[in-house]
């Protein structure tokens, strides 16, 4: 039988013998589809849950008790290249587990966008530790998206450096524990620029037209530009931030700024496509290994200080395990290994002392352990209301074209 015949036979079987014409058959499935569409619209009628529903007052003292439990399946979401994996292996050996370490956070907002629906509807997100930057950590704390820490399981919390013991969105560190801090300043290639830079406003030097990148994140870029305008970014009002975004817009329109990037500015900078970047201190230490010409400066007007925080998402399955892991990373010896590898600013007191013995070059690197005069110039992110934050984000999105 040829293909055609099979088709014919099938058609006869389907339509003629059942007494149903092809037209009627199609009509019926049309009706079925319509019914389902109606069902679908009922579905769409549900609203999308907001974040404000379970807001939490972070100032309130909370005591929780997380008894010893199995750590099998402990999962940690972190940024790429943000840990010395040997330390993780040592932890695995020590506790006979295998921590699932996922380098999946490339952008705070993108990650939040991914897990937001589950958090808003009160479902677990399958990660026990997430590592988020201050402004995003603030949002999670405020919205009640994280579990309070049982500090009995984290005795090493005593090693937390004093200037981070309290932060505006989590004054008692009830929910968050710093992972690493870093400075947002300027990374550049003196060979290309032909001169040393020292000011934020060098970003706008017409000699570098088309050779400048900025970070997409307004908390970084706009706040840094704001410092260059002589405004203290940590107490800045939304109007001032919008002015800084305006300034960035003009620079973009003039062709001064080549791209707005996430962490990927590093490729362009190392390759020499870009000469000047708004950059993170730790990235530059790592890039210098590939391209020794590169330099990082904390501009004379100041730089932004960010901290990435470990936190346990609401309904996380392995609270005890997460806390044990946090405790492990607050041992000065372990923290020193991480600092030596990631080259960011360690929040663990005693790490520098360990490194002075093992790796004095790193211990004396001002990018990793900034001296006091630099520390005085580091500014925390401004505290914005959710509405203001949205205003800032969408103003910046207009500039970056997305």
């Amino acid at each position, binding site marked *: 039988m040829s293909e055609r015949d099979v088709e014919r036979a099938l058609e006869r*079987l*389907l*339509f003629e*013998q*059942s*007494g*149903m014409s092809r037209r009627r*058959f199609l009509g019926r*499935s049309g009706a*079925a*589809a319509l019914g*389902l*569409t109606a*069902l*679908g*619209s009922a*579905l*769409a*009628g549900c*609203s*999308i*849950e*907001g*974040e*404000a*529903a379970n807001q939490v007052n972070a100032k309130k003292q909370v005591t929780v008790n997380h008894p010893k439990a199995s750590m099998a399946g402990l999962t940690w979401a972190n940024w790429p290249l943000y840990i010395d994996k040997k330390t993780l292996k040592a932890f695995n050996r020590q506790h006979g587990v295998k921590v699932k370490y996922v380098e999946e956070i490339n*952008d705070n*907002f*993108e990650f*939040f*966008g*991914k897990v*937001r629906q589950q958090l*808003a509807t009160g479902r677990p997100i399958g990660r026990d530790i997430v590592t988020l930057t201050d402004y995003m950590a603030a949002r999670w704390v405020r919205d009640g998206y994280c579990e309070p820490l049982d500090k009995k399981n984290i005795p090493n919390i005593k090693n937390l450096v004093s200037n981070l013991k309290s932060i505006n969105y989590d004054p008692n560190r009830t929910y968050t524990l710093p992972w690493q801090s870093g400075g947002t300043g300027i990374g550049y290639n003196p060979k290309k620029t032909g001169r040393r830079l020292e000011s934020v406003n060098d970003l706008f030097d017409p000699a570098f037209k*088309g050779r400048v990148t900025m970070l997409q994140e307004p908390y970084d870029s706009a706040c840094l530009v704001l410092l260059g305008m002589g405004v203290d970014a940590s107490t800045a009002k939304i109007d001032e931030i919008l002015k800084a975004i305006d300034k960035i817009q003009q620079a*973009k329109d003039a062709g001064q700024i*080549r*791209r*707005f990037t996430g962490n990927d500015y590093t*490729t362009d900078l190392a*390759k*020499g*496509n870009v000469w000047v970047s708004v950059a993170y201190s730790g990235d530059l230490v790592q890039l210098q290994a590939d391209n020794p010409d590169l330099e990082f400066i904390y501009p004379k007007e100041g730089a932004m200080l960010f901290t990435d925080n470990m936190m346990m998402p609401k309904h996380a399955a392995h609270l005890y395990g997460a806390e044990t892991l946090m405790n492990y990373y607050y041992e000065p010896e372990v923290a020193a290994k991480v600092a030596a590898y990631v080259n960011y600013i360690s929040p663990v007191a005693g790490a520098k002392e360990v490194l002075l013995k093992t790796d004095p070059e790193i211990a004396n690197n001002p990018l990793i352990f900034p001296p006091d005069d630099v520390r005085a110039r580091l500014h925390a992110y401004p505290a914005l209301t*959710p*509405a203001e934050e*949205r205003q800032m*984000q*969408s103003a910046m*999105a207009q*500039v*970056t*074209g*997305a």
Partner: protein
Amino acid sequence: MLRLSLKTRRSLLPYLFLGPGLLWLIVFYAIPLVNQAGVSLMTGNPEDGYTLQWHFGTYTTAISDYSTQFLRSILYAGIATILDLIIAFPLAYFIAYKAGRWKNFMLLMVVLPFFVSYVLRTVSWQLILNDNGWVVHRFQDIGILGADGRLLATTTAVIAGITYNFLPFMALPLYVSLEKIDRRLIEAASDLYASRTTAFRKVTLPLALPGIFAGSLLTFIPACGDFINAALLGTPNQYMIGNVIQSKFLNILDYPTAAALSFILMSGILVGIFIYARVLGTKSLTEAAV
């Protein structure tokens, strides 16, 4: 157990056959589509949530705010599709008619890039078009680029990226339709004193139309929604509508605008396809689908 008559069973049979496919379409296509249509009519903000208000204004604002990116997407995707056609037609023609025993090898070469991730392929273009790279230097030597000219982070780079990434989508349908052509028809044309160009114009090309049609659709539609090339090879001045939708969904969490933009893009493309189908003749639309 319920015993159904033969007749009832026969009448249920077609639904049984359709079942899996229909279920798939409903669960993964119809429901999400309707759901997103609902989302596009919601109002609110990420803080307080979004509720369905039948707010059609989102569409008009979306169009007026992002018309540049829409037009840019269509322009870039259009140019890339035409370039792909120009590159892929001779390629497919060669593979189908002249490659001989190299045919399978050449087809493999066309498909080979698919073995590497899309993002990775695009990132490698960052290296190729590097400011200090070979390509830029040679272009500067011949004078196409000025001394401080660049390729990376320009419109050229984005269109080149799209053209490269979607080339197999054009080449394969073209190859299939060219391969299918009965050679005797071309022989008959020359028997009837048609020159080689006339035979090509009157026989090969019309018979290859379904392939051209399918290839252009397969290239143009995904290229319109692409955001990888613009993000990796371009600047905000090259951002396409896909970049806007991506950032609205994931970064700004403005779901209604993102959904509205997606629907506008979808309906725009649908209208475009129908016009295109009319121009080429609807027959080739169904042929291309087979």
